[in-house]
């Protein structure tokens, strides 16, 4: 049992913290909210050049040879500054499914592209029924003459506008879990992409697939066998998103404590009032409590141990606690905090989006209940 970062991890964390702090100030976050593409190419290239897209992948594909755990450390730092660039998505939704279930040829071809930033790959899983369940996948793919034809509509696909490749789940058989995963160039005929306007001003899209044809070699993993991969990816995504919330929560706590020290009312800093002290200590406790439960899950996932309970505990706790942390922060800030120009609201809008991403607290509590055989 050792809960501290090792030297590599510490260095990674410090480098990332410095980098993001200087490269991703609040102005950048705000700019990207209304930017058509939602990311800055120069900054993205800098991130790529740090090699961070390769952190969890082996060196032979151009990666860093570290693990998911180290990538989580990066995400915590990215979350702290609300990084708009698709670090989370490109690695966990793009590279990771290929690494987990692609064949060697696919890995050799695609992972270097992901890591070098040559390609951005995104995952099109959700559909009209947005529950994380194989039954929600209604998009159909049928094989004929070594060509798959796909029909269906995908919802909530992140960054589809800047992704040259899509990973698309589709139903390929009669059983509930007969789901397959396809790699489809986003320029393929029959694909239409239209944007959604979201609470966090991020970039999500609806993708319509109408007779989209791709060669059978674009199947990732075996036919009817993608569900397990999706589950692992969504576990990782839930933890990755929790890490972002943890970083964001730390920043919200710091900024709020700072405000409580400097804002005066009734002739003294508001931080001297019992209610404000209570608010701050509650925030601190929630944030502090979050770290262990997330990293335990992250460590287990990185070590291929069963982490189902830990993932569900981590995401349900973090979903609840981070929204609460933001709500308390608003309460300490008073009026100024809910103006558009204040930094806190950038965090609280994204908190809501993160809360519901990759299973909200209720989803994970239900999952935990069945893992506990209740």
């Amino acid at each position: 049992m050792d809960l501290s970062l090792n030297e590599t991890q510490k260095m990674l964390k410090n480098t990332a913290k410095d980098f993001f702090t200087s490269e991703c100030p609040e102005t950048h976050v705000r700019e990207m909210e209304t930017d058509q593409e939602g990311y800055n190419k120069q900054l993205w290239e800098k991130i790529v050049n740090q090699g961070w897209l390769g952190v969890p992948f082996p060196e032979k594909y151009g990666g860093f040879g570290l693990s998911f755990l180290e990538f989580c450390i990066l995400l915590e730092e990215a979350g702290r500054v609300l990084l708009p660039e698709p670090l989370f998505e490109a690695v966990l939704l793009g590279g990771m499914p290929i690494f987990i279930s692609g064949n060697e040829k696919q890995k050799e071809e695609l992972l270097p592209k992901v890591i070098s930033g040559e390609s951005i790959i995104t995952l099109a899983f959700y559909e009209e029924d947005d529950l994380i369940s194989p039954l929600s996948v209604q998009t159909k793919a049928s094989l004929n003459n070594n060509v798959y034809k796909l029909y269906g509509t995908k919802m909530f696909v992140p960054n589809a506008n800047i992704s040259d490749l899509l990973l698309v789940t589709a139903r390929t058989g009669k059983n509930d879990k007969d789901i397959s995963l396809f790699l489809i160039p986003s320029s393929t005929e029959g694909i239409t992409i239209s944007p959604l306007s979201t609470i966090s001003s991020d970039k999500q899209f609806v993708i319509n697939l109408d007779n989209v044809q791709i060669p059978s070699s674009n199947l990732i993993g075996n036919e009817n066998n993608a569900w397990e991969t999706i589950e692992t990816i969504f576990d990782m995504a839930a933890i990755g998103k929790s890490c972002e919330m943890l970083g964001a929560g730390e920043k919200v706590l710091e900024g709020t404590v700072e405000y409580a020290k400097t804002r005066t009312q009734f002739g003294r800093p508001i931080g001297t009032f019992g209610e404000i002290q209570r608010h701050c200590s509650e925030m601190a406790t929630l944030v502090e409590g979050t770290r262990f439960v997330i990293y335990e899950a992250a460590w287990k996932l990185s070590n291929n141990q069963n982490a189902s309970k830990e993932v569900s505990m981590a995401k349900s706790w973090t979903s609840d606690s981070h929204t609460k942390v933001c709500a308390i922060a608003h309460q300490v800030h008073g009026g100024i905090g809910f103006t558009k120009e204040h930094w806190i609201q950038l965090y609280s809008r994204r908190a809501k989006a993160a809360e519901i991403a990759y299973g909200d607290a209720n989803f994970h509590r239900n999952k935990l209940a069945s893992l506990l055989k209740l």
Partner: protein
Amino acid sequence: MRFAFTKEEDDFRQEVREFLKNELPKNWDGVAGNNLEEGASDNEWEFTLKIRAKLAKKGWLTMAWPKEYGGQNASMIKQVIFAEEMTLARAPGRDGFGIRMLAPTLMIHGTEEQKTNYLPDIAAGKVQWCQGYSEPESGSDLASLQTRAVEDGDDFIINGTKVWTSSAHRADKMFILVRTNPDAPKHRGISFLLIDDMKSNGIQVNPIIDMADRHNFNMVTFDNVRVSKKNLVGELNRGWYVGATLLDFERSGVEYSSRCLSLLEELIEFAKTNKRGGKLISEDSNIKKEITELYTEINVSRGMSYKIADMQSKGEVPNKESSMSKLLGTVLEQKVANLGMKMLGLYGQLGPKSKHNKLQGKIEQEYLSTVSATIAAGTSEIQRGIIATRGLGLPKG
């Protein structure tokens, strides 16, 4: 004790309901999916004024006023019914500042001339007032306000900045608290003035856009703005007591529970008719529990508002009760919005602008706009302080 409405009360409710049904467009769902009286656009604001004029004509806006000022001396219960129906219909048109706050203040503290000058227009719904209270450095500690008014012949000259001024960009006039004696103890150097024209020289209204992208609040700066001494309400340097005593006048806070109940009922209907993962949302045990808890809490909050109305009907002055009602009611607004988010899943992040949204994107709007509920008009912390000290008699800290 009687927990039922009289025939007359029921009839009145019906009348309001019919009126609103006729006056509001079909499928009306509130102004721009939000709850701003002043609306988001000029068109909405015009519509608000149109409805307001009709409500005034019906006498409903001023039904609580004493007969001598053209009111009906209506029972508080009747006003609660009116408030409930307006809220349930998400109808615009009521006037919080003129009718509920300024008018009762003038009735008690105003000169005859002030009453004659201002009350009729307020009653007719012709003038929009706004309230110049908070300042950037004076939020919860309102009495520390620094906006300065200096006597100059028959006038005061005002300099300073007010903030969180709702509707200032729509308002014709403002009532304002200013510091007229900077050397006195902070509560003793404040005066209450009326500014007749928000377009006066030296007044600048700057919009504050909130996190839901709405324009409700403003920052208002005063640069040597002249106001006649005739516009002083009450005594010089006694404005704190003029301005503070009537803040709770005629408010039972029933709007909170009405809004919550109407939204919760929409959510219940949604949960019963929509599925996730092949199961009705209402079958999710977590959702079920939260619905029943909220349903109960909303009824508790509604009861508290009725009690306040009942006290007022009997001439009793609620103090801690109003704070409790706001405390409970505002938290409920946030809870309902959060429950909505839980029900809508990923669709919860889609606002009114998104064509794929559910429930017209209103849950996203509710979540964003109710952040201010426990802060604006006296934070929950301030309300708890009022309950503890004024209500329970605990010594001040």
